[in-house]
């Protein structure tokens, strides 16, 4: 890389249930994003005119999240009119895609300072609001064997032999770790409370975590995708994975990522930006990778993307201290660890989306702030971030502490 892409700050909102009774339902998507930009500005005494671009991932970029929400967030935050903004969508990778693209902008030398993150108010703009060929194009769905992700996750579990108990146990551990991390302040550096226009706090901390979860409780939940599978999707899947005679539907709301509202923002810049603005780098983005594999099972590319990322960086698994895989479904994280032969003890050490929720477009950059905080807390060097992505894509990013 020509220039290093430094991480000067990384923050996120707390996450809350993405439904009417969620704490953030009353907050407009642009306010979630603008609150973070304001926090970045204040925490770093930022001259916003220096910022070249704001990149925001958003997976349902319609309605209140429509028409380039990134630029509107910059405007709402009162940032200098010279600051550009772009909303991008790579499904669940969007937040990390923003980070990787932002890092590329800096690495190329074209830009000096960008904000990369994402925003998703799933309570106000429900998942699927943006339509698309999957839900409107019969020929496409049939010709490309479209199967919903959850059935893909169940298929991974079936192929790999993860039982219901296995995935529930994974989920329980995610809950335990997330609650522990939150309660011990591990997220405090990056979580910025959401405030109303009076400055009153609407939400201080993640409130989606369910520390009281138990194996019994999780075990009692009904499988989410069984009925849908029986309507033909299982058969569609088996057409491709033809050694299977059935799909075990092990995923439930308890061991899948939760629907939540939230936003994230990472301040990425060149060394020169740091010098000009008197900022101290907290970390560096080492490399990023994107690829795609089978779009039908859809969720198996994170491991391969991490391998690709290591190759790009000229590193090996041993060079990575901690790993973050977005817990879209328990089986995704489990497959990732198996693919890369890594242990759960160094993976998602503070829990993940099963416990805290997955605000689609925002999650990728949230992984970064959690990872950076934890590397600092443990005084470790490198972390890998990965997510599974719609369409069979996988995305990864390696960061290291400055």
């Amino acid at each position, binding site marked *: 890389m020509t220039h290093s892409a430094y991480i000067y700050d990384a923050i996120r909102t707390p996450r809350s249930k993405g439904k*009417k009774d969620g704490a953030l*339902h*009353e907050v407009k998507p642009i306010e979630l994003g603008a609150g973070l930009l304001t926090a970045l500005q204040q925490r770093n005494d930022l001259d916003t005119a220096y910022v070249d671009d704001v990149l925001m991932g958003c997976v349902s970029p319609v309605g*209140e999240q429509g028409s380039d929400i990134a630029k509107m967030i910059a405007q709402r935050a009162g940032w200098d009119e010279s600051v550009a903004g772009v909303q991008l969508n790579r499904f669940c990778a969007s937040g990390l895609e923003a980070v990787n693209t932002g890092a590329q902008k800096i690495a190329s030398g074209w830009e000096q300072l960008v904000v990369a993150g994402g925003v998703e108010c799933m309570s*106000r703009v429900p998942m699927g609001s943006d339509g698309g060929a999957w839900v409107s194009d019969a020929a496409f769905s049939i010709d490309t064997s479209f199967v919903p992700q959850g059935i893909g996750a169940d298929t991974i579990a079936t192929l790999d032999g993860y039982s219901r108990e296995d995935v529930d146990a994974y989920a329980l551990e995610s809950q335990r770790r997330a609650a522990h991390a939150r309660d011990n302040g591990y997220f405090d550096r990056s979580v910025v409370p959401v405030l*109303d*226009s*009076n400055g*009153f706090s609407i939400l201080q901390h993640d409130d989606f975590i369910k520390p009281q979860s138990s194996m019994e409780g999780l075990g009692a939940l009904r499988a989410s995708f069984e009925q849908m599978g029986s309507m033909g999707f299982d058969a569609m899947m088996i057409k491709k994975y033809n050694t299977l005679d059935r799909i075990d539907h092990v995923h439930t709301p308890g061991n899948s990522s939760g629907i939540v509202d939230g936003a994230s923002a990472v301040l990425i810049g060149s060394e020169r930006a740091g010098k000009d603005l008197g900022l101290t780098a907290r970390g560096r983005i080492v490399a990023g990778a994107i690829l795609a594999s089978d779009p039908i099972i859809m969720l198996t590319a994170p491991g391969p993307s991490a391998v690709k990322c290591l190759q790009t960086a000229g590193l090996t698994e041993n060079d990575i201290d901690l790993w973050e895989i977005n817990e879209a479904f328990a089986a995704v994280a489990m497959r990732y660890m198996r693919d890369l032969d890594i242990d759960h003890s160094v993976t998602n050490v503070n829990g993940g989306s099963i416990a805290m929720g997955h605000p689609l477009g925002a999650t990728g950059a949230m992984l970064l702030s959690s990872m950076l905080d934890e590397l600092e807390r443990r005084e470790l060097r490198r972390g890998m971030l990965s997510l599974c992505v719609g369409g069979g894509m996988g995305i990864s990013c390696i960061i290291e502490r400055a």
Partner: protein
Amino acid sequence: MSVFNYQKDQQGIVTITMDMTGPVNAMNAEYKVAMHEAVNRLEQEQGLVGVILASAKRVFFAGADLKDLVRATPDHAEEIYRDIQLMKHDMRRLEKLPVPVVAAINGAALGGGYELSLACNRRIAVNHRAVKIGLPECSLGLFPAGGGIVRLTHLIGVQAALDIILASKQMIPEKALAVGMIDQLVETLDDLIPAAKRWLIDVESDTEAARQPWDRKGHKVAGGAINTPKNAQYAAVAPTMLHQKTRGLLPNATAAMDIAFQASMLDVDTALRIESREFVKVVTGAVAKNMITTFFFQLNQINAGASRPQGVAKNPTRKLGVLGAGMMGQGIAYVAAMAGIQVVLKDMTLAAAEKGKAYTIALLAKQTSRGRLDAAKAEVIADLIKPTICDTDLAGCDLIIEAVFENIALKNTITQSTEQYLSDDGHWGSNTSTLPITQLAEASAKPENFIGIHFFSPVDKMPLIEIIAGEKTSDATLAKAFDFAQQIGKTPIVVNDSLGFFTSRTFSTYLDEGAKLLVEGVHPVKIENLAKATGMAVGPLQVQDETSLELSRKVSETWAAMGIVDKWGDGETQRRMIKDMITDNGRGGRHHGGGYYDYHADGSKSIWPGLFELYYDDSVAVVDRDIQDRLIFRQVIETLKCYQTGVLRSVADGNIGSIMGIGAPAHTGGFIQFVNSYGCAAFIQRCEELSAAYGERFNCPEIVKQRAASGELFA
């Protein structure tokens, strides 16, 4: 005993009759307790069929106590939020009772009163003009925050709700029924409770009747959520139309629209919370304070006669003489006739007098054609005006208002030749905006009965009258003028005689500063646009064209003839404008060959290009903020000088007079309240900056320094 009288009848209907301490039911601390207890009891009630919310007072329910609200500061923000949420929670419990609730609206249900009725399943009102229904909060810098925006939006749709809320509309029951604000009318008060009971019995088996529309399955906001395609055009245009009206200076209006938009997309509970949060911000902000202070407390003070002499009996005008049937005279005749006063409209020729009356006939015809007035009534009103050329027709007038040209000799001649026709208890008013009343009164045999009554143009639209007491004007005369102003539905302010009184003198500083900026080389369009951005109704150049530089020239000549030059400051700029514009270019104003603007045949106008040649200098860089502050501070400082020297007798008169007479920005609460809101210390500092940069005319008046020292507000 609760102030909510709770009665359950044999049919299982509970009637809660609100009978709070004091003259009205209001949303105060007592209400909160009473309502909370009532809802607790209702939730426990067995065999309940329905609930009627009724009033023992003449009004159904008044709104929040503005005395509390005007004191709200950001320090109270959390407490206010908690309180309002608790109160709204109880309203929510009321509407979620398993049985229907009826609001039995016997009298005015405005603001909080109407909001309370929105938390009922049905609103039945007595069909009487006194039963005003509406949400007037926005006119006071607030918005309906007791669920008013959220529920009305869900009930009748975003657009319809905002039309009512932003305009602070108050409606008679028939109108309220037509727009869907209420559900049913009864013709008599006696039938109100029985009608409510009949409805409750009718719907006893209908479970949906107890459910608010917004709590029903599949509920859709009338007209759809704001982000549905059919609302796209409205959603894009409505905010900018609002901005055009408010210039973005009324945060309450912006918040109201934003809340309604959001409410249309969100569930009621979430939207109610947003409404509360935004209310806290608005109610603790400066604009609400300014507007409540001026448009409620001070306007009430004025209307209640604070500046009217005490102990003088009401003296309504029976027969009015109007001398001069020109633009002002004909307008005065019209407003007087509309108030049922007999008018003798006199001019030099019968044609002129009749033309003056024709003005009234034309205005009446417009109203009858729009169905606002019936033809018979219009005829009665027109018949009240007698056009004439004979002084003798004025015999018996108990008030004569002379509205001839601004010329002392002419006015004196008329006074002397005509005052003999006044009735024994008659009084003389001179409509002048510039001539000293004390001096005009010298022509009168009874100077104690002589007073200045300054109307604003156009008389039928402008709400203010500036009453000027001369040195010898008696209390009885002042009371007469005051009563007359109220009789014709105007708001009177009372000032002491001084050159230019209050409004003309202050207004002239706006014109002068606009001219100064122009002469300095500031882009003329920029001056106009920045003036409007401050909230002034019209830019200084345009308004100078309307009132005409020609008139300014005449006035200064008249004053010069009286030996008065530059009484209130350096008139150099005005003299230069008169030379440049009138003498050299024949541009005395809109109706004098054009002025700062060219006026085109199609009704449009554009800056006269000569201004650019004469003055514009693109190297001049006065920052926008200075331009705006110069235009406003000149007027504020002049107002303060009027107050400090006793030209203005009260702060209320200064604030209301500046808004209604000069077009001061409403959000400031007027040119004296402006200083309260700006802060005395900050104001002094800003005056010093402006004075250093632009001249002594920006020196801060002493009275502000005194207030800064004492910490006392202008009140």
